[in-house]
């Protein structure tokens, strides 16, 4: 998935200072973390960046089209899911609108040996990792606990306890290093270099577990890339409540590098993440990336942004829409014409239709399945309760359904509402 970039020698310079480590010596500065890396301006024109530009030298029209296609599909899926939630088909939906470049650009930078830990809004990342869109929705329909198998996709399940997945990512990365150490000691061939990419939000950055993750990652030189999507809001709380300064500046305080990137610029995100993943894979990690972006939609389908933010802020960011910018790049830089977009639209319409049907196809598992997965090994209490549950459910069948008073809960509780 990651083409080897034409790197200039200084890009691969080991961080001597960091290697000699110890108190007092480290290469990163807060200042360097304040610049925002950008390879496209707001009108979709390429701009220069001598450090990160080389990391996307291989990018051609096909690559940009493919990035655009992924972003476009993600947006359309997002719109469809928002609609489905309104129709009561989905329990809750956190829209990604506005964050497509940050997600697709970064997900493209990792490969089959790498492992990805999403938070809960990374739908475009999940699609990039090969999970079928309809399957992805079973969790949000309330039909299953998780929608894909980490063992198959090398992509962890969504984590709703904010920040909780970040130490897992670091531990997984420590495991990658341990694999290499064990192989080396056993005189075996080295496993392929691999890195971990973990996503979290500006709000989640405040959680203590994220900090401990940084400490552990630095302490064990873990090959992990911390990817913060700073979408300016944590539900109704603006970023200024979480921090006075960009989050990328945090990295220096742990002795590793933090880079701030324009999260609505897919090329810059791709370049910076490729660089970071290479740093991590090659043992110079961890690295932190802060992608400056914006949640154009509501926090979730249960949210109402008009309560807490001004439309002029939304409008300002709407002009920086990553899809518009990438479309402009395709138009102006690569001369891609309207036919391409028309075809893409048609193709996507068909895909959405099919996906929608797939989503609506399934129903919830039976609760009995939960008794199978709470423990991996046999457990007497679970067995006892499973048996009880089965007998109890069966009693309705044998006694006749009219025996059940189910549903009379809400009836008798005349005044109860539902969240």
């Amino acid at each position: 998935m990651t083409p080897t970039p034409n790197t200039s020698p200084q890009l691969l310079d080991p961080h001597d200072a960091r290697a000699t480590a110890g108190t007092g010596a480290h290469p990163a500065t807060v200042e360097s973390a304040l610049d925002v890396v950008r390879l496209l301006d707001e009108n979709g024109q390429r701009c220069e960046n001598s450090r990160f530009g080389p990391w996307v030298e291989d990018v051609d029209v096909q690559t940009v089209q493919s990035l655009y296609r992924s972003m476009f599909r993600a947006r359309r899926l997002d719109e469809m899911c928002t609609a489905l939630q309104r129709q009561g088909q989905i329990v809750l939906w956190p829209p990604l609108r506005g964050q497509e470049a940050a997600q697709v650009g970064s997900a493209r930078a990792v490969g089959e040996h790498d492992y990805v830990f999403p938070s809960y809004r990374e739908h475009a990342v999940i699609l990039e990792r090969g999970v079928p869109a309809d399957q992805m929705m079973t969790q949000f329909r309330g039909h299953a606990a998780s929608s894909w198998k980490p063992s198959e996709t090398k992509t962890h399940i969504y984590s709703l306890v904010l920040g909780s997945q970040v130490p897992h990512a670091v531990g997984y990365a420590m495991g990658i290093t341990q694999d290499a150490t064990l192989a080396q000691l056993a005189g075996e061939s080295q496993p392929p270099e691999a890195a971990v990419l973990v996503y979290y939000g500006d709000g989640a950055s405040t959680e203590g577990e994220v900090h401990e993750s940084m400490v552990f990652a630095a302490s064990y030189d873990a090959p992990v890339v911390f990817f913060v999507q700073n979408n300016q809001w944590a539900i109704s709380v603006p970023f200024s409540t979480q921090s006075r300064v960009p989050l990328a500046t945090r990295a220096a305080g742990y002795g590793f590098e933090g880079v701030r990137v324009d999260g609505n610029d897919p090329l810059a995100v791709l370049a910076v993440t490729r660089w970071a993943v290479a740093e991590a894979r090659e043992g110079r990690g961890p690295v932190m990336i802060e992608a400056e972006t914006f949640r154009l939609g509501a926090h979730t389908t249960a949210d109402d942004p008009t309560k807490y933010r001004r439309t002029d802020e939304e409008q300002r960011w709407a002009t920086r829409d990553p899809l518009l910018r990438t479309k402009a790049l395709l138009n102006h830089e690569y001369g891609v014409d309207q036919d391409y977009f028309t075809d893409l639209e048609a193709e996507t319409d068909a895909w959405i239709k099919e996906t929608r049907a797939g989503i609506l196809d399934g129903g919830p598992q039976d609760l009995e399945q939960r008794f199978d997965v709470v423990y991996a090994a046999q457990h007497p209490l679970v067995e006892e309760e499973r048996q009880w549950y089965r007998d109890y459910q069966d009693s309705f069948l044998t006694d006749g359904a009219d025996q059940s008073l189910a549903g009379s809960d809400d009836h008798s509780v005349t005044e109860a509402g539902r969240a």
Partner: protein
Amino acid sequence: MNQLDDSESTLRTTMAKALNLGMRRALTDDPKVLLMGEDIGSLGGVYRITEGLKGDFGAHRVRDTPLGEAGIVGTAVGMAMRGYRPVCEIQFDGFTFPAFNQITTQLAKMHARSDGDVPVPVTIRIPSGGVIGSVEHHSESPEALFAHTAGLRIVMPSTPQDAYWMIQQCISSPDPVIFLEPKRRYWLKGEVDLLRPTTEDPFTAQVVREGDQLTLVTWGPLVPVAMAVAEAAAQDGKSVEVVDLRSLSPIDFDTLEASVNRTGRMVVAHEAPVFGGLGAEIAARITDRCFYSLEAPVQRVGGYHLPYPPAGMEENYVPDLDRILDAVERAFAY
């Protein structure tokens, strides 16, 4: 604020609104009261319980905090040391755990650790319980995890009247209180008497329906279900007394004991898993206190020993009318 006009002495409203009015009154009565939590300001909280309060009392008294539960509870403890009475909101029950250290080792123990010198009158509001059709970690019932820790008090109102009064009583308690809100009943409507609380002491149980053959004890979201169970049992010729526990720590065992000594049978129902749940403490103590009165072992009904399941299965997980009635029948079968 004219809802607070004392000339209107009762009000018919939802539990959500009653909580809002209760906090409004606490903020009005005592300048040392302040609210802290994620999204409680402009948004009014994800359940809108604090709606309008930031506008009326200012951002210094209704604080949108950074996103860290340990930070919320930990700084609330510090503010309490400075003489304030912070009321923290944890957004959902499942997100209490990042603050568990602050709650268990600090908030609960500060008064004892300081030999009584440092009271920490902090109230922690937690929307609690399930059947709201949501995603994971949004439907937990963590009461037993707090009850075992000395130093905390825990309550859960089940009516707008109790919500209005108990939130005020807990805010003025000199001890820290975990204030559980039955989130699926936020829109339950009822009368609120603006002049008189149900009880002066919020840490007591209430008999909410009298009966003489079985005591059904529960709290929070299951109280209306228990009332329906008693009604269904009555149609079957069985007389069930319903006790709304209200206070989960301390537990008003005197009221429970008196009831069971009359009825001879008890069922405890809660949403949390049965194993290690608060029902165990109630069953064990009532069995000890009423050994010769009990005609059947105390029957417990609650969640299974499973993480709270996905929304599509939750109605089979949380005890409903049928399952509680089944437990009632088991008790009568002895």
